[in-house]
């Protein structure tokens, strides 16, 4: 019997009697039974109840971004309104992509529309070429398009209406919108998959999700928060990813929220655990369903610590950023050292494997 066959076994048994923890739910400690979740339940919950709605929300935001960009370039909308729509689209994108699995990974969408840092020289060249339409945009390098390029065109060197730069901004927005629509289609296909019937696909999907959750955590902790601080020359501001638009704090919160909801159960879920196949099954719920009560409690406590540290993370205060990064690192270690192995998931991102 393989790991995944074992993991897929045990459907529907209510084995785990858990006490709710004071850190997250207050003094009341009701005893709640969690179902045993299998990989198919995890995939159904993740794709149908989280990623598909997120992809749809992103597509809606991207469509609005295109409309707003066209309106601005045509002189009928103001730059602040367009900037606000860009920020809203970024949030919708990060809510979908912070744990890059499923359609986002399959399509390599991060590379397509969120390649950072933007290359100004390539953007300038693209403006001069004036590409129009999907085929022409495919010839534009990824460092010159996507949301970071649009950020550059809206903040770093704002494109004035009725200029070649604004025409390119419209093409970039349309390109993001096309990718968003393609993500909806791809995620709809993945969501419609019969996960119960294909244990191998469920197992692979689950392993990818767990690995990518860790990858998303490291992306936030190191690449987005700690590294810019450490790499900044003395007396210079850290080059955070969304510095130009001043969106880093909101971006970090969005990413953390996406990671958090897939990691830990909510107070409401403690009272009424997610039903298999009917809702997102967070990692903590899977642990409880497997009877890993003590580990689930420590995982919950580590998440709560990270919640507090992340809530205080302010890009203008280095100490607060480092404090949050430290909390995320502790979470990372607990995940790598204990949580993933309890889920029988081999980790590609792990510190436990070699190279």
């Amino acid at each position, binding site marked *: 019997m393989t790991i995944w066959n074992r993991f897929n076994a045990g459907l529907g048994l209510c084995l785990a009697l858990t006490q709710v923890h004071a850190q997250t739910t207050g003094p009341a400690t009701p005893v709640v039974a969690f179902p045993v979740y299998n990989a198919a339940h995890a995939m159904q919950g993740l794709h149908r109840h989280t990623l598909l709605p997120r992809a749809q929300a992103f597509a809606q935001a991207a469509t609005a971004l295109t409309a707003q960009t066209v309106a601005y370039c045509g002189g009928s909308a103001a730059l602040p309104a367009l900037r606000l729509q860009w920020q809203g689209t970024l949030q919708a994108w990060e809510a979908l992509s912070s744990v*890059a699995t499923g359609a*986002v*990974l399959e399509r*390599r969408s*991060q*590379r397509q529309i969120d*390649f*950072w*840092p933007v290359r100004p020289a390539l953007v300038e060249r693209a403006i001069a070429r004036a590409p129009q339409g999907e085929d022409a945009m495919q010839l534009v*390098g*990824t*460092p010159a398009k996507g949301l970071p390029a649009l950020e550059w065109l809206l903040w770093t060197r704002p494109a004035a209406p009725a200029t070649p730069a604004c025409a390119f901004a419209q093409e970039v927005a349309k390109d993001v919108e096309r990718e968003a629509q393609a993500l909806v289609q791809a995620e709809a296909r993945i969501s419609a998959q019969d996960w119960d019937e294909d244990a191998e696909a469920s197992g692979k999907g689950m392993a*990818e999700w767990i*690995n*990518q959750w860790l*990858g998303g955590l*490291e992306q936030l902790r*190191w*690449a987005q928060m*700690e*590294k810019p601080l*450490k*790499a900044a020359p003395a007396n210079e501001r850290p080059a955070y990813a969304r510095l130009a638009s001043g969106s880093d704090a909101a971006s970090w919160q969005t990413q953390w929220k996406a990671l958090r909801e897939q990691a830990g159960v909510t107070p409401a879920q403690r009272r009424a655990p997610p039903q298999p196949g009917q809702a997102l099954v967070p990692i903590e719920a899977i642990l409880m369903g497997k009877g890993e009560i003590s580990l689930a409690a420590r995982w919950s406590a580590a998440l709560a610590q990270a919640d507090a540290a992340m809530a205080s993370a302010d890009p203008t205060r280095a100490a607060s950023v480092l404090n949050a990064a430290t909390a995320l*690192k*502790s979470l990372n*270690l607990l995940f790598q050292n204990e949580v993933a192995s309890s889920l029988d998931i081999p980790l*590609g*991102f792990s*510190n436990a*494997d*070699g*190279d």
Partner: protein
Amino acid sequence: MASNDRTTRLLAAWQSDEEQCIGLIDLAADGACVVHRLALPTRAHGLFVEASGSVLAMARRPGDWLVRWHPRTGATQWQWIEDDHRFNGHVMSSPDGQTLWTTETDRDSGQGRVALRNAHTLARTAAFATQGMDPHEMLVLPARVGDVPAGSLLVANGGIPTQPETGRAKRELDRMDASLVALDGHTGRVLGQWRLPDPRLSVRHLAWDPVSERVGIALQAEHDDAQARQAAPVLAVWDGLGLQTAREQPALVGYGGDICARPGGGFLVSCTRAHHLAWFDARGVWQRSEPLQEACALGNTANGWWAAGRASALSDTTTDPLGLPAGVRLDNHWLVISTRS
């Protein structure tokens, strides 16, 4: 084997509590201790000792930092990789000390690169293709082998398709294309390229055997089928003409973590997942194995070898396992700095 009271100083990378570190470890029969250490932002992988005694360490793939560290003074010099590339874990200096080579992946194309870096500033000055994906360890040939001249740069193209967004997760293994490539280390001109018949064997770490004048290559199997992976060879030998996988080897779980040359010729491979060290002759014929829990880092001199496991180490002159510093979990590699009796 006979016991002795020598002390060996090794450069190693490890995890300790919540910290990733590199540092110097003194290893002796009566105990081991960390004598200098540097905390790192993420896990290190490849290590290199420069002629001056300074140390180079690189982030594990996909990595973004390279550091030069002076153990005695504690001084550091950090280099952050250019944003369109990622480090692949190994760095080495050219024989004249003027250039550093680093293996990297182009984030956009996913293709392998060797970057040439100014040895003083660590800044990138040029780069060339490795003719493959996932380049890992490099080796400068000390002598001519076949038609490949001395001084050529050998690069192990691990061959695993990598994506920045998946980090180390392995996808599309059907596209694997591992190879050993010989390059002119200054121009990138291809001098030769060799592939194993089995495309699921990733070519990762290299060792030069001065006795046989052959290169040993530690392999890591990526077969979907568990039985094929278990039985896969952990070693290939390159003689300038082609690659020969290990012969008469028992199942060693298909994972060679590190490799070094044996005194007198042949190769030693750490089989981390099989919890064994494996001895091979210079033709790749398996000789014997010895147990060592989580065997991985291997270091050697012309006269001896040292192997690290989860909590203890073995060497060519010890009868009993040597303890490692408490709380230290070593990474894939370590290098012998000095030995004294």
